[in-house]
């Protein structure tokens, strides 16, 4: 159970500053530590709850489930465990919702499901999210929280980053606004696909954001590694994202953006 999602006990501890907090208080604060501002990870369900209009979310494609296409060692077991842990069939929850009554098509990754890794199901759900944006002429919002491609699906996984990119290209071609939100972590194959080529990219503060595992990057480099390497702050300084948005400002920011960018869809 994550501190931000409503812990089982009365108390919980901040993952960053280690302060003991009232679980209910942290829950009310959307998982943001009142002491140090640390943004604890949220489940997809809680993310949807705190972001979109109350009751507006309708889940779709919930019946998609991962199979084991290349019979990869222990993959089936891992899938069963992740299902048991999260109650979901894969790491992406997708559907339609509303932001201040503006309809949007959304996909949210749950890091708890095998590190939010991108396999066939996650990519299919994300692609269908873009397709729903195209069909319904609504903005698309994707929250990422992923370690990257799901290596247990082998080359299928690599192809998923092309597949989601293809869907983004169609949206761009048809003037469907697409907002990508990085949450902790947004890495590797996910960063090198749909997440990085949105019209507007927002990130939660301090989220881990990068292409290669930090160990790999540092090994590959003789030069000094900056202190904030592979954080939201680092990629902002380097022009890769539009804004760092604290969690409690995320909903109003998204509302403004879909109002502004989606004006042409509403005539």
């Amino acid at each position, binding site marked *: 159970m994550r501190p931000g999602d409503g812990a089982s006990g009365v108390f919980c501890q901040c993952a960053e500053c280690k302060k003991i907090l009232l679980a209910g208080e942290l829950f009310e604060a959307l998982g943001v530590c009142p002491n140090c501002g640390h943004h604890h990870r949220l489940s997809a369900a809680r993310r949807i709850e705190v972001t979109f209009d109350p009751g507006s979310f309708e889940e779709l494609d919930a019946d998609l489930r991962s*199979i084991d296409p290349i019979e990869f060692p222990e993959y089936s077991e891992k899938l069963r465990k992740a299902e048991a842990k999260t109650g979901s069939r894969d790491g992406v929850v997708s559907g339609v919702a509303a932001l201040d009554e503006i309809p949007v098509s959304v996909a949210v990754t749950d890091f708890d499901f095998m590190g939010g890794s991108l396999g066939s199901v996650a990519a299919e759900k994300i692609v269908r999210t873009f397709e729903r944006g195209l069909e319904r002429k609504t903005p698309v919002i994707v929250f990422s929280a992923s370690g990257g491609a799901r290596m247990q699906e*082998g080359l299928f996984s690599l*192809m998923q980053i092309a597949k989601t990119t293809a869907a983004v290209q169609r949206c761009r071609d048809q003037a469907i606004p697409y907002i990508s939100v990085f949450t902790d972590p947004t890495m590797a194959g996910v960063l090198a696909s749909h997440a990085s080529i949105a019209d507007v990219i927002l990130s939660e503060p301090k989220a881990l954001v990068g292409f290669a595992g930090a160990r790999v990057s540092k090994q590959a480099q003789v030069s000094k590694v900056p202190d904030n390497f592979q954080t939201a702050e680092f990629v902002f300084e380097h022009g890769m994202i539009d804004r760092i948005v604290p969690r409690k400002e995320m909903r109003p920011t998204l509302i403004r953006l879909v109002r502004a960018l989606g004006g042409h869809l509403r005539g």
Partner: protein
Amino acid sequence: MAKTWKEWEKPLLELDEALGKLRELARVATPDRRAELERRIAESEQRRNRYIDVMYSRLGPWEKVLVARAEKRPYSLDYINALFTEFIELDGDRRYGADHAIVGGVAFFDERPVMVVGHQKGRNIQERQYRNFGMAKPEGYRKAMRLFDMANRFRMPVVTFVDTPAADPGVESESRGISEAIAAAMQRMFELKVPVVSVVHGEGGSGGAIGIAVANRVLMLEHAIYSVIPPEGCAAILWRDPDRGPQAAAALRLTAQSALEYGLIDDIILEPHGGAHRDPPGAIRAVGEALARHLAELGAFDGEALQADRYAKFRAMGRFGEGAA
């Protein structure tokens, strides 16, 4: 298990060395001795060839990794220089720098203008450094995008040669957006209204490879590999032991044969007897024939159809269950 291609081909090397000695002996031997020696040479040659047959008809995934990385295999520029005429290299991302791990430019194939782009590795220390081991930085992908754009505007087919261990993973590449560059390059390839053929001829290393491999036809050489993660990296994550690359290679099913079986590539180009590194001209010829065939087939479609085909192909990739379990 062998850890490098040289180690793995050692028995062959020994046979070749023995053969060399016999030939030297035969050259200086008396006529009656020579007949005997020549019989032994013929035997040795047969043995060597049978050995090659056996080794290369049963290449396991890990051996394919070793062969795909062999520095004697033709590299992208070897294919480009041999198969195309009047190649003019074009360079620059118009943003930051020149990248030598990806080369590209205009050329003619069968008298027709084409745009060619490929990863390029080096064969000696200086070349390897100059080419950054075939690991492109953001500049490389942004140059590729510029060339893709140009090809699209001037209706030139695009041919890409894929051979990279991975995109450059360094701090510099991160700071200039290697992820964005790869994603944007793929996106650009989905925009193209011209035929696109990609040839994975060595290492198809993850995002670094797919960044220039969103093609209507993806062809793989018989012993090339294509993988979401290097097997050593996979082993390090799975078993915390990078030395278990051979097992990871098997688990990842990173061979051309698996990729074709899964419908993730479109064709396999057979390599000469004993692999492309044993007969580069033969490998280049085979690639040329495959390119000619696939480009001719794609030439029958108009731009919209080509773009739609590319989309439909990648859209359909992925395997999952739907409905009640």
